[in-house]
């Protein structure tokens, strides 16, 4: 076993807040245990040591928001055997994907004194829209334990286990009362993938959908119900357009609701 070459891991950042990389650093206790079995070849947030690859595993944080990003991710893909996206920015475009529904040029003009120096794309898009992705680790931020599971699984040669069920199941396992039913609080839990440990509803806050859409989620039915219960459509649109707002299942529903709303207004 020890004679086998250690898998080389590279950690790469695109448009993001670095929070997911911090989760990786925060997992140092766990990772120390497997440190002998992996070789961190590229991780600017942790070490200045740079290995140009190729990498066995590329962990990619962040979304694609500039023309140079779009080129760089292709280059990383070519140099990596497995490419794993980590976090909502990388898997769904992140909070910055809100620009996808807005006038990007206007933003640039409003924010920057010299807009002509700014070279960005009109959209923030997930990595998988640009290159093939082998595995997606969801979350804003990612769950440290899931990240360790992914790394340990790859070292051990098995598929990582990250559940795809709804947040509701986790609420019920931990004994949290459904805040939508008992308090009328709009919550994305029924359509959001597990991973956070169902934190927000335990503190009487609705789920923000940080881990993105659950498998085969029925977003349309949920939003119909929330509308009927009195949540205004614009509020629902805001609820859906969060860290994972550009994930297809959330995106389609928020666009449907936004359309519904403009019809009502006009």
């Amino acid at each position, binding site marked *: 076993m020890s004679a086998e070459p250690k898998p080389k891991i590279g950690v790469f950042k695109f448009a993001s807040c670095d929070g997911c990389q911090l989760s990786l650093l925060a997992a140092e206790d766990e990772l120390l245990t497997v440190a002998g079995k992996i070789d961190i070849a590229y991780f600017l947030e942790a070490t200045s040591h740079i290995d140009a690859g190729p990498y066995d595993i590329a962990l990619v944080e962040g979304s694609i928001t500039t023309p140079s990003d779009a080129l760089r991710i292709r280059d990383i893909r070519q140099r990596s055997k497995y490419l794993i996206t980590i976090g909502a920015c990388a898997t769904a475009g992140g909070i910055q994907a809100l620009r996808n529904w807005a006038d990007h040029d206007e933003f640039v003009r409003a924010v920057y004194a010299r807009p002509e120096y700014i070279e960005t794309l009109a959209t923030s898009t997930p990595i998988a829209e640009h290159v093939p992705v082998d595995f997606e680790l969801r979350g804003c931020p990612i769950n440290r334990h899931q990240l360790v599971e992914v790394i340990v699984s790859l070292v*051990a*040669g*098995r*598929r990582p286990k990250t559940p795809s069920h709804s947040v509701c199941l986790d609420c019920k396992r931990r004994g949290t009362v459904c805040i939508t039913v008992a308090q009328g609080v709009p919550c994305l839990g029924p359509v959001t993938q597990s991973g956070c440990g169902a934190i927000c509803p335990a503190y009487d806050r609705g789920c923000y959908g940080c881990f993105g859409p659950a498998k085969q989620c029925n977003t349309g039915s949920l939003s119909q119900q929330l509308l009927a219960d009195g949540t205004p459509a614009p509020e629902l649109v805001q609820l859906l357009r969060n860290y994972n707002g550009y994930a297809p299942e959330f995106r389609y529903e928020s666009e449907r609701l936004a359309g519904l709303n403009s019809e009502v207004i006009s």
Partner: protein
Amino acid sequence: MTTNKTNASGEPGGVSPRTMSENIVRGLTPSGSPAGQVVAEPWGYHTVRIHEITPEVADVATYHLGFDDSAVAVAYRFQPGQFNMLYLPGFGEVPISLSADPRSSTTWAHTVRAVGNVTQKLASSKVGDTLGLRGPFGSGWPLHTAEGHDVVIVAGGLGIAPLRPAIYELLRQKNRFRSLTLLYGSRTPETILFEHELPEWSQRGMTVQLTVDRADAAWSGSVGVVTLLLDRLSLNDPQQTSVFMCGPEVMMRFVGKSALARGIPESQLWLSMERNMQCAIGLCGHCQLGPTFICKDGPVYRHDHLAPFLNVEGL
């Protein structure tokens, strides 16, 4: 821990209809498969060791497992068609049929295709490695119901593995059956399992017919699905014919139709089913099909007991 699936009425447990109470109609699957027997620690594992690994075809190997505890080895019995839960700590647990002679007494064979986390880990294991075993579980092939009959075994792909112990037993008791036929379909000539044993089975009196989905240049046998072999098989007396089948669900659906069309009584058709199993003792709920738990009422069923549920999509 012998789970004898035969209940007092002589029918295999889990399939004898019975009336329960006024508003309860005929139950297909009374629970309580091993008659009257209660297993207190169903999660108890035995440590087993890999004594030998026989590579079969690409991605498939047979693992010959022996118990570390010789007292367990002496007591361990299984019926053809039953399965064990094999546990690789750190990776998980999978249900695997016993695939060799039920009268073996030193090692027990499990023929496994490497497809998931656990089976792939098993594929990288070596002789001497240990793992956990619980079992045997489930119902076996009720060979005694076929006494005096022409016996037709229909296997598709890896489905021959749970039938192989039955084949050994049938050959051993050959005189109690009128004839023995094996119809075996494989994807390609390269994926035919236990090919080296087939001549011996023929020699001992079993008619063996093979077919492949895709032939290569060297193949001179039949090409096409295994149902075609059954369609073409000449039957002495359909009323006195029993069929034991295992393979992909779609294959078994067609074999069932073909057998019925040939006039074989539905009560003489037996099949072995597969579903997600996580406990093997009817408590986790994953393996349900209609009213049955495949892990404890099956995996071997009489065709007519499953027929209403076989053709419903997504059940």
